[in-house]
């Protein structure tokens, strides 16, 4: 079973103050720490688990600059065999352009499955995986929480809204967008990442891929980034822990809950 997994490096934004940049089209990125996109981490783990069970190779692909190789090394340390980074230069990227670049690279690889995350933590688009599947002309499923390959198809479990999963058979090759919680991603040590440096990491420039101008033209553009509109917001409870606890208990009791 040969698997391609698409990964992205994203800024960590939990408990971080994001500052809108001067052009108001993005955020100041210089002081942010970067990590692997959470969904992609699960996708890599799923690829490696399937490879351990069924054999074959796992290839990790990302689009980005040299610093983004960090997520490829991480994928290699988790068990991927080889990796590709496409350098986009200073091209403007949106979900459409990204899917076009990925399709061009992946089309030449042998694969039974392509895995991506459901979405990325920064742009929250959730479109690249399925656009990629269409460009590769393979079947697809979104928000996948279980995969069991069986011959030339796979039993795929999709998470729906409202506490319900949908189980289907999907013909292979196919692309799945992987939801968090599908597995427990393994721990990666610094030592492991260092060792993975011996594994294959190829770099391709986007201009070498021979994509048309149409394929490299974004479908959408961010015109402005702004802070969430003001709401009434929460009434803040202040004071030391003991005073805060008193207040919380008072509010809960006032609302008719007996404690």
């Amino acid at each position, binding site marked *: 079973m040969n698997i391609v997994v698409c990964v992205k490096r994203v800024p960590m934004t*939990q408990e971080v103050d994001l500052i809108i940049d001067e052009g108001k089209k993005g955020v100041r990125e210089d002081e942010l720490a970067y990590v692997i996109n959470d969904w992609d981490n699960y996708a890599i783990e799923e690829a490696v688990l399937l490879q351990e069970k069924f054999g074959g190779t796992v290839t990790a692909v990302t689009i980005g600059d040299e610093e983004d190789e960090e997520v490829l090394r991480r994928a290699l340390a988790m068990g991927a065999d080889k990796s590709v980074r496409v350098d986009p230069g200073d091209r403007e990227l949106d979900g459409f352009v990204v899917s076009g670049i990925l399709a061009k690279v992946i089309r030449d690889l042998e694969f039974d499955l392509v895995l991506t995350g459901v979405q990325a933590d920064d742009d929250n688009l959730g479109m690249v995986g399925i656009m990629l599947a269409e460009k590769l002309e393979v079947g697809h499923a979104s*928000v996948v929480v279980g995969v069991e390959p069986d011959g030339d198809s796979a039993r795929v479990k999709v998470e729906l809204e409202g506490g319900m999963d949908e189980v289907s058979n999907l013909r292979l090759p196919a692309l799945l967008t992987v939801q968090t919680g599908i597995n427990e991603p393994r721990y990666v040590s610094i030592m492991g990442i260092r060792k993975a440096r011996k594994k294959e990491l190829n770099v391709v420039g986007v201009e070498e891929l021979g994509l048309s101008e149409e394929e490299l033209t974004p*479908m959408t553009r*961010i015109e402005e980034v702004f802070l969430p509109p003001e709401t009434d917001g929460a*009434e803040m409870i202040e004071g030391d822990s003991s005073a805060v606890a008193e207040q919380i208990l008072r509010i809960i009791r006032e609302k008719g809950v007996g404690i």
Partner: protein
Amino acid sequence: MGEILVVVEHRQGEVREISKEMLFKAGEICRNASHELVAVVLADNAADNIVPEVAKMAERVLVFQDDRFNNFDSHLYREVLARLVRERNPFLTLMGHTSWGMDLAPALSIKSGYPLATDCVDIVIEDGRPSVVRQIYSGKLFSRVSFRESTGYLITVRPGAFLVPEEQPEVEGKTELHELYPDMAETGKEFLEFVDTGAGDVDITQADLLVSVGRGVGEEENIADVQELADVMGGTLSCSRPVVDKNWLPKYHQVGTSGKSVKPKVYFALGISGAFQHVAGIAGAGTVIAVNKDPKAPIFRVADYGVVADLFNVVSALKEKL
């Protein structure tokens, strides 16, 4: 003027709430810009239930009735819709930003060549061109997004972004039955079953007080601490998605779009940042009290009371008082 197409999402014979929200928003846009609202229903004989419901909110309902639509299949939907947009050139096509919509909309975009913006919380038409508002960085910021010029545009709509008012004037939409195109390609997907993931030993939907824990709990061992607090308070323990993803609590504790919608008198959120998927599940809560270290956490935008603090300090202080 052009049409606004709404792709109706339904499951097991029921129209999903997102469909009504899209019809409501599309209706509003149509009134302001004299477009025509057209709902599209792809269904098997469940169409008999679905169509009357939809016709109350759309001037025209296009129905493709076929046994192959007994369950959602994004490949079939894409085939039908791609041909439909080619025939009708709708100005806007709306789909839900749901598990199914996420599998359909990007596919339709590639097939039709229409540009797509996903997970939109607002839609504005200016000078005949749409632009949308969507959240980025998990709701910490908003963005206004424009499309490249096209005859039609595709948008997926975030569930809960456009709430339908209780008093909605009803229309009597015309129904048009369409034959399914004869040369539909075979699809590589076979539906097997639905699995209920919400059942378990604890029913969080019945609790008056939910003590709910999120990513901020940090370690699996710490869950016991919060469980203890829930016990002494006489409340029920619930959680947000990251806690279930890490297997620290079973799925039936999960509040949110993929878990359960809850309606306690008090929802006490500990270390929950407030992703929209979570917040959507607590819309029915009486009072929300949130504790989080991050003063910018989105949960404070929806909570009634907030505490910026380490949740464990608050948990121990509460235990001391009980």
